[in-house]
């Protein structure tokens, strides 16, 4: 049995979308954030959830949204989490950083910060994240740089920016940050921009080769690990949703992953059930752990990837038994067959 099949008593990490409020309106936003959701959790409720996560020894909480720094109680909540010794990663658009936030992140061994930037130039970034955002984001990165904060710049790789990856790495390095690349997935507003922004097979192949040649690039994304041998050593090599991770949305709904926030994958709400209850007993989670697309079983890589990203498969085909439509193995097979 593969180690990822060993049952865990709790998630290793939690993705927590603390608010849907965002001052930007990015065309690929996975959660289609703009205004706060009705019924977002209160600070008191969040602290109760943190107490549960601490008791379960969840190691890490990754905050996103929405823009987490727009949540009025975000910094007090972070303080509460750090007092419990839980590691945090804050994913921010970098445009609303305050002196208080920067001071709290500085020299803090429990903080990692990830700033989203989708192009090495204003022309490319602003086409995705909005007019004038490049300048503001770079300014935010400047505020965080040199403050002893583990800092990464996160780029969702699309057809608009994939040719700028080397420049993005240079830019990150110039601020003492590392470049992290994430996969573009058709959830949230990205469902509407999918056709325009998705990578073509040849671009995906180039991306795969580029990643193979540079182990310093962070991915944190199972997809990039399944696509080539070298990166398997750097992180998860299959989908960790409901196996190692889960996502809490702003109103306390729990899902296997941030990209699977549909009713059919809702494990329960933390106002009604405990984290442990949902993790152990929610049918959505139990079913998710059993996902194994039947058409992938004859693939030599099946034991390593188990079908890739269910989110991409589901949103493009509405069929969880489908393999990842962007699987490089499938493309190679198809092109060899066609040739």
């Amino acid at each position, binding site marked *: 049995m593969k*180690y990822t099949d*060993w*049952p*865990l*008593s*709790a998630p*290793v990490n939690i993705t927590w979308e603390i608010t849907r409020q965002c001052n930007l309106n990015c065309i690929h936003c996975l959660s289609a954030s703009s205004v706060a959701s009705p019924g977002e959790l209160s600070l008191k409720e969040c602290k109760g959830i943190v107490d549960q996560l601490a008791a379960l*020894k969840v*190691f*890490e909480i990754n905050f996103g949204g929405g823009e987490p720094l727009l949540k009025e109680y975000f910094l007090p909540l972070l303080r509460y989490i750090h007092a419990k*010794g839980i*590691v945090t990663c804050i994913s921010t658009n970098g445009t609303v950083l305050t002196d208080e936030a920067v001071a709290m992140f500085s020299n803090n*061994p429990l903080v990692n910060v990830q700033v989203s930037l989708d192009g090495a130039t204003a022309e490319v970034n602003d086409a995705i994240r909005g007019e004038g955002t490049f300048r503001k984001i770079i300014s935010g990165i400047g505020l965080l740089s040199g403050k002893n904060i*583990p800092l990464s710049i996160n780029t969702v790789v699309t057809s608009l920016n994939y040719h700028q990856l080397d420049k993005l790495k240079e830019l990150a390095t110039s601020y003492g940050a590392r470049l992290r690349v994430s996969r573009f997935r058709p959830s949230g507003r990205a469902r509407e921009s999918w056709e325009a922004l998705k990578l073509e097979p040849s671009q995906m192949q180039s991306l795969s080769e580029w990643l193979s040649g540079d182990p310093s690039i962070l991915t*944190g994304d199972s997809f990039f690990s399944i696509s080539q041998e070298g990166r398997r050593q750097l*992180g998860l090599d299959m989908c960790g949703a409901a196996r*190692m991770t889960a996502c809490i949305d702003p109103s306390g709904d729990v899902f296997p992953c941030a990209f699977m926030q549909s009713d059919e994958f809702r494990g329960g709400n933390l106002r009604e059930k405990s984290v442990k209850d949902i993790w152990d007993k929610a049918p959505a989670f139990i079913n998710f752990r059993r996902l194994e697309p039947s058409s992938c079983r004859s693939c030599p890589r099946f034991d390593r990837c188990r079908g890739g990203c269910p989110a991409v498969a589901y949103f493009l085909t509405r069929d969880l038994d489908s393999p990842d439509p962007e699987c490089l193995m499938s493309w190679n097979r198809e092109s060899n067959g066609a040739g």
Partner: protein
Amino acid sequence: MSLRLATDVRVRRESWGLLFYRQMPHKLCFVKSGDWLQPAHFDGTWDWESVAGDISRRTGTPEEIVERSLSRLAGRLMKNRVISDEIH
């Protein structure tokens, strides 16, 4: 040598053994140790010899067998920078 987690490492108990988490760079280490090892063994108050004695007492497994297993595990944990190599 006392057993102590490296500074950015945490550990928790699972049904099959221990799960180690290293913050930077990210690393998970799955140790299928069943009931042999406890997170408390890595709190800095134990050494491998006393851990082996504890396991042997609790499980009835001869100490030399336990020591052989622990020796291999120690190498793995050290290689993965999960435990510190400070001498106390």
